């Protein structure tokens, strides 16, 4: 139980025995408490499933509605329309429908379940350091500090970086704080209740692929449900109304698809425009790079041509999640003393290091 401290720190040779130092802040050592994963202590308003593998927003009711709509409509299509169409026209129709359906489902689940690019909140040391810097910048006076912003010049455009009071960081360019999820998200596009998650840097391409493939699927089902009804009316010569009575599922599909197609195709078109000009929904709504703001206002993130912008958004590298949901919380990480105490020596307590 003795402390042998090596004298020189220049050589990386320590032959010492370190024991737990008893500081007043030391928590009692629990022998066999199960280690908590970081998602369990996540400060934002997100819901986690499958032990941290799945991450969604708090309100997921509309997501289940989306899922039910897609599953029911496709289910009806495959059950009632496809046998008829496969026989009458070609069996390729259910195959294409199946591929589209799987792609839509895959991209929807990817969008909904993945981390959109949440920025973890600042550690207390970082926050204190930033506060110090801001105080120095303000001149040290305590009264009425001006709004915390930092200006940075990106490709010739002056961009204001705002300080987030919740996350205690200066938000990177294009990041925004989602009030529903209570997180700062990188390259924040919008919070989509239909997918039950924010759309940000890490899941934007999945979102775009989802709405694009859903547009195709909706048009596909719409077209072939109508084809089914028309073929029934023509071939059985029983009249249009009887054809509708014979295949009520097709009628339901046509109605659902008719009302969805406008919004979904419209949304796909809108996002295609956003991708080609490398803007986010957030920036477009605010008119950040609109020429109406000023003659010299332009988008500094655009690569110049539509093709490069599209490739960058859809085929660019996918950054990993910054929040490490499934990592274990390291208790007793050494922290700095509060600055008012002057010199304080902290004995670091034993930390369970799970080295990355």
């Amino acid at each position, binding site marked *: 139980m003795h402390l042998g401290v090596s004298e020189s720190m220049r*050589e990386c040779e320590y032959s010492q025995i370190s024991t737990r130092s008893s500081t007043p802040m030391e928590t009692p050592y629990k022998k066999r408490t199960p280690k908590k994963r970081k998602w369990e202590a996540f400060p934002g308003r997100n819901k986690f499933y499958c032990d941290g593998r799945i991450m969604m927003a708090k309100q997921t009711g509309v997501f289940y509605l989306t899922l039910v709509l897609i599953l029911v409509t496709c289910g009806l299509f495959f059950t009632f329309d496809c046998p008829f169409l496969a026989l009458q026209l070609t069996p390729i129709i259910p195959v294409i429908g199946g591929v589209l359906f799987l792609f839509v489902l*895959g991209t929807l689940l990817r969008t909904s379940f993945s981390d959109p690019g949440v920025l973890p909140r600042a550690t207390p040391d970082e926050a204190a350091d930033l506060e110090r810097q801001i105080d120095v910048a303000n001149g040290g006076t305590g009264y009425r500090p001006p709004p915390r912003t930092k200006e*940075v010049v990106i490709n010739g455009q002056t961009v204001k970086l705002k300080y987030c009071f919740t996350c205690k960081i200066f938000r*990177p360019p294009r990041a925004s704080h989602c009030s529903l999820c209570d997180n700062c998200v990188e390259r924040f596009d919008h919070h989509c209740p239909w997918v039950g998650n924010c759309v940000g840097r890490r899941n934007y391409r999945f979102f775009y692929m989802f709405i694009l493939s859903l547009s195709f699927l909706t048009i596909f089902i719409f077209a072939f449900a109508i084809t089914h009804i028309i073929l029934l009316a023509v071939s059985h010569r029983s009249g249009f109304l009887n054809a509708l009575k014979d295949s009520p599922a097709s009628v339901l599909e046509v109605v659902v698809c008719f009302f969805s197609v406008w919004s979904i195709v419209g949304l796909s078109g809108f996002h295609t425009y956003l991708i080609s000009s490398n803007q986010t929904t957030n920036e477009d709504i605010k008119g950040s790079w609109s020429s109406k703001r000023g003659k010299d206002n332009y988008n500094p993130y655009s690569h110049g041509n539509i093709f490069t912008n599209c*490739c960058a958004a859809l*085929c660019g*590298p*996918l950054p990993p999640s*910054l929040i490490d949901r499934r990592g274990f919380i390291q208790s007793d990480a050494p922290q700095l003393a509060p600055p008012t105490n002057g010199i304080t020596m902290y004995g670091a307590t034993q930390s369970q290091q799970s080295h990355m």
Partner: protein
Amino acid sequence: MPVFLLSSKFHNLQELRHSASLVTKVFIQRDYSEGTVCRFQTKFPSELDNRIERTLLEETVKTLNSYYAEAEKIGGQSYLEGCLACATAYIIFLCMETRYEKVLRKISGYIQEQNEKIYAPRGLLLTDPIERGMRVLEISLFEDRGSGGSSPSSSMSSGSSAR
């Protein structure tokens, strides 16, 4: 009470925190002048003036910046990865490691190597930016507990209270 007997160099590095005491942390912030690409400022923090040579830290930061630029590069390989992933409805991401993750592992190894060779002998410790959400490059300053003479950090202890 648990007892650590330090035998390997790796553990020496990690046990730096146990033998020495943490004086302060210096944060190197992100440099956004080139957009949202991950880059750290190469400006030398004044708190490290008498702890490490400027060129060494600048070299480390520049190498890290080049690694991140490589990870985020939009070019042939990233297009291939993106198109392949799209064609498989992104299922391939469940099995394959992305290029970004590969580069992050390289960065992790590089930082560990730098810590062992350059920073730990000077009583400093770099924290991998990924553990701080890529916001900052955190440099922890340590001072040998009990001994004030051997390391030049004795001037630091008086400096830290002035802040």
